[in-house]
């Protein structure tokens, strides 16, 4: 029997507003390297994926992150099957 790769439990990433525009998509499923265990590590890894990602995620003060629909800090853990959303500061109301 073949080994199950972690790819089968991917992480779901969501991008909103300006980030969606810069990255060019609203969502994607990814399978980050095993070493990526925190929001901060994930942001740094994503920023290396291309200029759109880099532009969106460059300024940490302007990057809000929600894991499973809760606001979290850079040291919050992330793992397979998490829904991780990236967006600029909110402007509703």
């Amino acid at each position, binding site marked *: 029997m073949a080994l199950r790769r972690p790819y089968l439990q991917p992480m779901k990433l969501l991008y909103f507003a300006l980030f969606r525009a810069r990255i060019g998509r609203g969502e994607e499923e990814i399978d980050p390297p095993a070493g990526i265990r925190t929001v901060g590590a994930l942001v740094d890894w994503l920023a290396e994926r291309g200029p759109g990602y880099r532009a969106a995620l460059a300024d940490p003060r302007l990057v809000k992150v929600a894991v499973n629909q809760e606001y979290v800090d850079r040291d919050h853990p992330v793992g397979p099957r998490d829904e991780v959303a990236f967006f600029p500061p909110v*402007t509703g*109301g």
Partner: protein
Amino acid sequence: MIRLQREDFDPGAEIAAMTAGRTDIGGLAAFVGLVREMAGERRIDAMTLEHYPGMTEKKLAEIEAEARRRWPLQASLVVHRYGRLEPGDRIVLVVTASAHREAALASCQFLIDWLKTEAPFWKLEEGPEGAGWVEARASDEDAKRRWR
């Protein structure tokens, strides 16, 4: 109660529904946010409100629950629209009712202040010079900080 909807709302109907047949409400406070034609020097032709489906409802419900923990409210309502809006259109409605005016007024202000910084909405403005995402205002963070 919270509602997230594309369609318009009627502040008068919501206020009337909240007070109808009740004799335990001494004060009701309401706030209506609307799309302005001018944002500082920029003219706005339209605005599109994007949100994070699922999380938006969750955060609105949390914000309302927090207001009801802090103040003795007889009733509360938050209605927030999303989608494309034009100048003069209503965006958001907050209504709170309490036995006393202080609780109604303070909780209404609290709800709109928190909503502005906690609820995942983003505004894309369209004007004569193209479209641009509205940037968050530091004053909104300051307004929220009052309530810590």
